[in-house]
């Protein structure tokens, strides 16, 4: 259907509401990448077949990620008058069970994640009450959504629709208030007023640098040119980070709506979404969404009859980390090698094809519709003095709950790691958390009460980055961590600047020396010197931030470096070359398992037999290749690692 008036939009909303909240049971399967990788596709098929086979009165739908990636596949069931329930870890076999149990007015308790009696409609600032009257049997002990520790401290603004709507259905996005902000922007606001609103909201770029979004728009609007571009950075390249992917897979229209509003505000009629090719599902969802929006007249020529036109193209990136840098991204769209250039003249003046270009990240665009609908005053009440709103993090590593979390700025790292993340598994001790992707810094335990915002993270030698968060426990070696990230960055540096190309390579080389027992104290000074020059002398922010993992680990874990260098010991027992295996003769039972598995034939002894007592086994240090096979094989904990 084509939308020409507000009444048309309301009509589309009605249609979407019927699809979101039908008058019968509706089952939604979380089918973002995280769901699919754990078998959500099979779950969906199984339920679909069962519905057809048994002619069940059920509407089946698919949705994006509700954040708890670790518990996928997640399946939720909605039925008018009943609480909505979310199941976790659903297998194809058990999916049939929970469908039939539901129809018998029961829940499958051991699979329940949580229940919900109302849903936040953030865009409209309302709560959609499910008007619960019937309680299925067995549900009493299940926590409410907001009582689940993983969700209780979260505030979902950017992820408002992820896991709740079918991303392929534009009506469902509209049902939750989507494209009403666009209508408001086009017909009730002047471009300058939109920019003013975004400025007042305090929104800062979510791609990492944290530049004030409104100011960027303003300078792009002021740039005089016949053509301008609006760009979306979806080249999420940080290892372990998937915030943007989840938004694109679960709620692509929020990004498109944000871009249209932005384009109208700065006066651009052409746009690109630069998305990495490794995100096939996000690309597919974006394609569908762009097509649906165009078909509805919400994108393309004469949007909503306002006279404003915008064409958005999809551009697939080839997988270079550096192409997430603004000027490299633009070079890549132009068809050139993705290499950054100096930007003393801002890209808002001279960007893509030397024309004014406004680039924002997925999450930034996604925040725009909500700022327009709820207003800057509401938005700026969330967060801290210098960082407003919420931030999505992908929390991974040595933490109980891994997944996608959205928290208000100013929350402490401790709350994220221990409350949302559920603490460290296996009773181990927390050691550090790395924020900001590969070029972020490692923050130690004593700084865990640090409020998370752009400025505070920078102060302690890390950064917000795009929102990757890696938790490390005591079994992590910080020198090894620094080496790992330097290995990544030296490969991903475009190689243009001497400082970045050679600096990262040499830091990696020195870290390798240290982890292999050839480190000297001079190496520490050299690392600091290289770190300084790489950050200070490089052209773009890849080099500018690359030394963070090295400098922050030296700053907070200097003793660990010294142990490696002076005592040739790796306290976390990670650096293989520094490990020493030995067999405790008083514990050894002479079973001989260790000698059997040793690939280097470094273990000798006399195996016990039924008749004879054996002699304890011994490891020949000269021959030992430190593979750890004996350690794994010993059933009596007779092998010690130093």
């Amino acid at each position: 259907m084509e939308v020409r008036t507000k009444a048309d939009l309301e009509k589309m909303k009605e249609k979407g509401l019927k699809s979101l909240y039908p008058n019968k049971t509706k089952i939604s399967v979380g089918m973002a990448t995280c769901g699919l990788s754990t078998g959500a596709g099979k779950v969906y098929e199984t339920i679909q077949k069962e519905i057809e086979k048994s002619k069940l009165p059920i509407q089946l739908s698919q949705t994006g990620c509700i954040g708890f990636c670790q518990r996928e596949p997640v399946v939720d069931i909605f039925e008018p008058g009943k609480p909505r329930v979310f199941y976790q870890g659903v297998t194809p076999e058990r999916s049939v069970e929970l469908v039939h149990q539901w129809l018998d007015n029961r829940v499958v308790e051991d699979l329940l994640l949580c229940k919900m009696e109302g849903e936040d409609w953030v865009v409209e600032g309302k709560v959609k009450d499910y008007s619960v009257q019937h309680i299925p049997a067995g549900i009493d002990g299940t926590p409410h959504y907001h009582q689940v520790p993983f969700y209780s401290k979260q505030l979902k603004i950017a992820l408002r629709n992820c896991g709740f709507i079918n991303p392929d259905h534009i009506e469902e996005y509209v049902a939750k208030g989507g494209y009403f902000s666009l209508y408001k922007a086009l017909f009730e606001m002047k471009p300058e007023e939109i920019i003013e609103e975004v400025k007042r909201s305090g929104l800062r770029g979510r791609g990492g640098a944290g530049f004030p979004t409104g100011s960027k728009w303003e300078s792009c609007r002021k740039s005089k040119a016949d053509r301008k571009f609006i760009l979306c950075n979806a080249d999420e390249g940080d290892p372990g980070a998937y915030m943007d992917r989840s938004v694109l897979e679960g709620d692509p229209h929020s990004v498109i709506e944000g871009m249209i509003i932005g384009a109208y505000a700065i006066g651009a009629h052409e746009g690109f979404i630069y998305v990495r090719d490794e995100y096939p599902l996000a690309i597919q969802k974006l394609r569908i969404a762009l097509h649906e929006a165009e078909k509805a007249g919400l994108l393309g020529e004469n949007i909503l009859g306002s006279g404003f036109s915008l064409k958005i193209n999809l551009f697939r990136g080839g997988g270079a980390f550096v192409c997430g840098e603004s000027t490299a991204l633009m070079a890549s769209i132009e068809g050139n090698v993705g290499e950054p250039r100096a930007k003393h003249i801002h890209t808002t003046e001279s960007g893509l094809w030397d024309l004014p270009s406004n680039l924002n990240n997925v999450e930034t665009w996604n925040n725009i519709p909500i700022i327009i609908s709820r207003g800057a005053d509401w938005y700026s009440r969330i967060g801290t003095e210098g960082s407003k709103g919420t931030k999505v993090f992908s929390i991974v590593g040595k933490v109980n709950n891994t997944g996608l979390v959205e928290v208000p700025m100013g929350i402490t790292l401790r709350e994220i790691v221990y409350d949302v993340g559920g603490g460290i598994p296996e009773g181990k001790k927390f050691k550090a958390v790395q924020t900001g992707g590969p070029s972020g810094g490692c923050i130690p335990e004593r700084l865990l009460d640090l409020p998370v915002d752009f400025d505070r993270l920078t102060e302690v030698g890390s950064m917000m980055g795009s929102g990757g968060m890696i938790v490390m426990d005591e079994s992590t070696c910080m020198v090894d961590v620094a080496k790992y990230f330097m290995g990544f960055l030296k490969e991903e540096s475009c190689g243009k600047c001497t400082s970045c190309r050679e600096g990262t390579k040499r830091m990696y080389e020195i870290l390798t020396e240290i982890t292999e027992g050839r480190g000297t104290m001079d190496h520490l000074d050299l690392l600091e010197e290289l770190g300084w020059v790489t950050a200070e002398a490089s052209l773009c922010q890849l080099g500018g931030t690359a030394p963070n993992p090295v400098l922050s680990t030296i700053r907070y874990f200097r003793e660990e470096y010294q142990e490696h260098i002076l005592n040739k010991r790796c306290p976390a027992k990670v650096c293989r070359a520094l490990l020493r295996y030995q067999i405790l003769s008083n514990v050894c039972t002479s079973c001989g398992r260790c000698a059997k598995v040793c690939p280097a034939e470094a273990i000798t002894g006399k195996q016990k037999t039924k008749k004879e007592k054996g002699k304890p086994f011994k490891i020949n240090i000269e021959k030992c290749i430190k593979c750890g096979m004996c350690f794994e094989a010993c059933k009596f904990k007779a092998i010690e690692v130093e």
Partner: protein
Amino acid sequence: MIPFVIDGQPVEGKEGGNVLEVALDAGFDIPRLCYHESVKPYGACRLCLVEVVRRGRARMTTACTYPVLEGIEVLTRTEKVLRARRIMIELILAMCPGDKLIQDMAREMGVQQVRFKQEEKDCILCGLCGRVCEEVVGANAIQFAFRGDRREMIPPFQGEAMSCIACGACVVICPVNVIKMKEEGDERTIIRWKRTLKMKQCKVCGNYFAPLFQLEKFKEQAKLPKDFFDVCYTCRS
């Protein structure tokens, strides 16, 4: 002309120009490897680092990529700048320890020893050859390939540079002289780009004076008569 200051001395630069060209014209000694006045500034070698004070804030940047702006103050010899340049040339020397020019520059800039493992590369990755080929010659025969430490200036797919006209501009512009050209009989070869072209013989003196492929290209580009290059430059003048 736009006025600004370098090391306390008032200078002027044209709009759209860069700080390095103004500084060099005014006689300041700033080391550089990837800069050449015939191509656009690139900012790869990071040797022409200076500090620029603008609106009260100082930052280190390369002079070649910094635009001429009114009222800026450029500092070319602060301790910070000299230290950064010194590490930069040390890093380049560790990469190409055999390059004579790099050895000399490193010595001049006070590098006494190289603290890194020495490699055996010859190319300093300044990119001048590729840029002159693209911007001046228009042949686009070579380009940077690969990322990070594996970065390399190569012809397409590391084969013969099929659009190279063997003009030798890259040979001339290379600051460390690692692109060699040889002429034998009726052939000219740019060794690094694996490109060998037959030469044209002058109708007057009988000398081989330029690659046929190059002359054909020039005739086509400038719409010259068919026999325009039958006689060599020397015999013609």
